[in-house]
C-alpha cells in the first residue's frame, strides 16, 4: 500500500465549513495525509486561498501578516512540523497575534515508523511551552466542539491554539 488509509472524507468537510464560518480565508499548509482533504476543500472553494509553504514556520508568519491586514489564516501541518515553528510562535506569545494550527499527529497511537516518535511525543510539550492552547480530537464527536472552541479562543479571545487530530482519530498510517 503506497497511500495512507486515512479516510478524511467524512469529517473534513465539517471541519472546513467550521473554519470558513469562523472567517478563515487563507489555508497555509505543508502537505500531509491527515489534512489532505481539508486542503483540497480550500483548493476547490472560491472564497478562500490555499498557500503551499516550504516550511511550517512560514505559515505562522503568514497568519500574523493576515491578521495585520484584518484577515484570518490557519497553518496546516503534520506533528513533525511543530518542530519547525517554536521561534515564530513568539509572534503569538509575545505579540498576541492570533495563530491557529491544524496539527495531524504522527508518532502517536499505533505508529509503526520509529522516526516519527521523537517529534510526535514532543509536539504537545513544545506547543504548551510556547503558550499554545491544545484542543485534542480523539473521536468524531470531539471535532466540532474542538474546532469551535479553538476558533473562539484564537479569533475572539486573542490566544494561539492548535487543533490536534490524534492518531486515535485519524488511524495510524500503515506501511
Amino acid at each position, binding site marked *: 500500500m503506497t497511500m495512507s488509509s486515512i479516510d478524511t472524507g467524512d469529517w473534513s468537510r465539517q471541519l472546513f465549513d467550521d473554519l470558513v464560518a469562523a472567517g478563515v*480565508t*487563507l489555508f497555509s499548509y505543508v502537505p500531509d495525509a491527515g489534512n489532505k482533504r481539508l486542503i483540497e476543500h480550500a483548493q476547490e472553494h472560491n472564497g478562500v*486561498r490555499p*498557500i*503551499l*509553504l*516550504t*516550511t511550517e*514556520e*512560514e*505559515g*505562522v*508568519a*503568514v*497568519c*500574523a*501578516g*493576515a*491578521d*495585520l*491586514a*484584518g*484577515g484570518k*489564516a490557519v497553518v496546516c501541518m503534520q506533528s513533525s512540523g511543530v518542530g519547525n515553528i517554536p*521561534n*515564530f510562535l*513568539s*509572534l503569538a506569545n*509575545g*505579540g*498576541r*497575534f492570533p495563530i491557529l494550527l491544524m496539527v495531524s499527529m504522527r508518532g502517536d497511537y499505533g505508529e509503526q515508523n520509529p522516526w516519527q516518535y521523537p517529534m510526535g511525543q514532543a509536539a504537545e510539550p513544545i506547543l504548551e511551552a510556547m503558550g499554545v492552547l491544545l484542543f485534542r480530537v480523539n473521536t468524531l464527536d470531539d471535532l466540532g466542539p474542538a474546532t469551535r472552541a479553538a476558533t473562539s479562543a484564537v479569533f475572539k479571545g486573542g490566544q494561539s491554539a492548535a487543533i490536534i487530530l490524534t492518531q486515535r482519530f485519524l488511524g495510524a498510517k500503515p506501511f
Partner: protein
Amino acid sequence: MTPATLDRREVLSRLFPNHEDYLFISGLAGSARDTAALTNDGANLFTMAGTMGAATSMGLGVAMCAPERKVVVITGDGELLMNIGSLATVATINPANLSIVCIDNGCHGETGGQNGHTSIKTNLEMMAKGAGIDSTMTIATEADLSEGSRFLNEATGPRFIQLRVKNGPPSDFKRNMDPAECRIRFRSALQP
C-alpha cells in the same frame, strides 16, 4: 563582484520618497532600524526584533489580505537566507502588490559583522529568479537607485530587489519594540 558603495542609511528614502503610500514589514536588526528611520516608526510599519526569517512570509500575508495596498518587505541577506524558501511561496501565490527589498551588506551586522554567504559566493537575485519571481534587479550604485524607483512603480509584481550596501552601521533610530503594541497600531491605522 564590484565593491558596494551605497550607504544603507540613505537608500530607502531614495526608493520610497513617499513612504506613506506603502505598508512596510521589516525583519529584525538593521533592516528594522533603517525602515523605522524612513517612516519615523509610523503606523504603516511593523518591525521585528526576533523571529529571524519571518519578514517575507508576514509581508505575503499582509499583501493577500490588503490587495488594494502596496506592501513592501524590507529584509536582510542573513534573514532572507534563513527562510529562502519563502521566495518560492511568494512566486507561487504571485501577489502583484508585493515588493521585497533585501538590504545586502554581506555580513551579520547585529552580531559583530561576521561574513555572510553573499560576501562569498551566494547571489540572492539569482535565487529569487530561480524561485520563480520574474521581476528582479540588483542595486549597487547611485544610478541603479533611480532605476530602482522606476522598477518599484512599473515592473509587474511580485518584485525582488537585492540592494547591495557597504558594511556600515544602520540608521540610529530607537523604535517601539513591543510587538503587541505595534500590532494594534498597524491594525488600527489600516482598519480605522
